[in-house]
């Protein structure tokens, strides 16, 4: 008989939920549900990427700083031989076992990093301006359009930015820095609104 999992994951940003919901107008910031995630390391041979992509129900990104959709999740390229694979359907252990088994024949390995990052979703007009308050990379849609991702600094915290659309971005941040990033974004969003509001 297998052990019954009785511990359920609690969103690390539960304490910030009220502050995010109280934000006036757009862009909106919401907490993404927790997902299973593995860090995949494998030599980036085209045949390997094709085989892994087919097994995972999608394709793995072939270029730097890009993401693609796979079944129930995303594949984000973090480096020359490193990908972050997420799944909203599988449990963390099942996801790690599955990807690791797929990567092993190609000399690769996967490690569970589900607890490493939490996701914020920023939607609405002006979302790129909001991030530009505190992030220095080129965020124009022409340079950072849908399908791109980037690891960079937001304030002093390392984050993974994911472009879902022109007015739709996700911020994945290390759990221990998540409160700092949310507080900073809420602060900037408030500053923008008060500056734009008629006096």
């Amino acid at each position: 008989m297998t052990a019954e999992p009785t511990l359920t994951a609690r969103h690390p940003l539960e304490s910030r939920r009220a502050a995010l919901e109280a934000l006036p107008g757009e862009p909106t910031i919401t907490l993404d549900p927790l997902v299973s995630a593995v860090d995949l390391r494998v030599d980036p041979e085209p045949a390997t990427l094709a085989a892994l992509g087919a097994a995972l129900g999608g394709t793995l990104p072939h270029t730097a700083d890009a993401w693609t959709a796979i079944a129930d999740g995303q594949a984000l390229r973090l480096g020359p031989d490193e990908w972050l694979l997420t799944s909203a359907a599988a449990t963390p252990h099942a996801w790690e076992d599955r990807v690791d088994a797929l990567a092993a024949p190609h000399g690769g390995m996967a490690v569970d990093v589900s607890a490493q990052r939490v996701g914020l979703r920023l939607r609405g007009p002006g979302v790129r301006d909001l991030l530009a308050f505190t992030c220095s990379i080129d965020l124009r849609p022409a340079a950072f359009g849908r399908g791109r991702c980037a690891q960079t600094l937001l304030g002093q915290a390392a984050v993974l930015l994911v472009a879902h659309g022109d007015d739709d971005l996700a911020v994945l941040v290390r759990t221990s820095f998540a409160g700092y990033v949310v507080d900073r974004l809420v602060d900037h969003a408030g500053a923008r609104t008060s500056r734009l509001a008629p006096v």
Partner: protein
Amino acid sequence: MQLITCPWCGPREETEFRYGGQADLAYPADPSALDDEQWARFLFFRDNPKGAFAERWCHDAGCRRWLRAVRDTRTYVFAETRPYGRSTV
């Protein structure tokens, strides 16, 4: 702020990088044959040119890969950056 071009991520601010010292240092072929002074020279003595200097940088806040840069120590201008070691960029 100064931008450094990461071979993988593209131009990023200098604060995303960590300095790794002089590049292309060869580990002694037979360390046990070195006397104390030779070992100290390998460990602690580095070039300090006025002008182009090949050095290692690590893109800590991005792809976490090492890169080899040639920087002018007088002007801080980066002449080139390229992947270091076995990277497959």
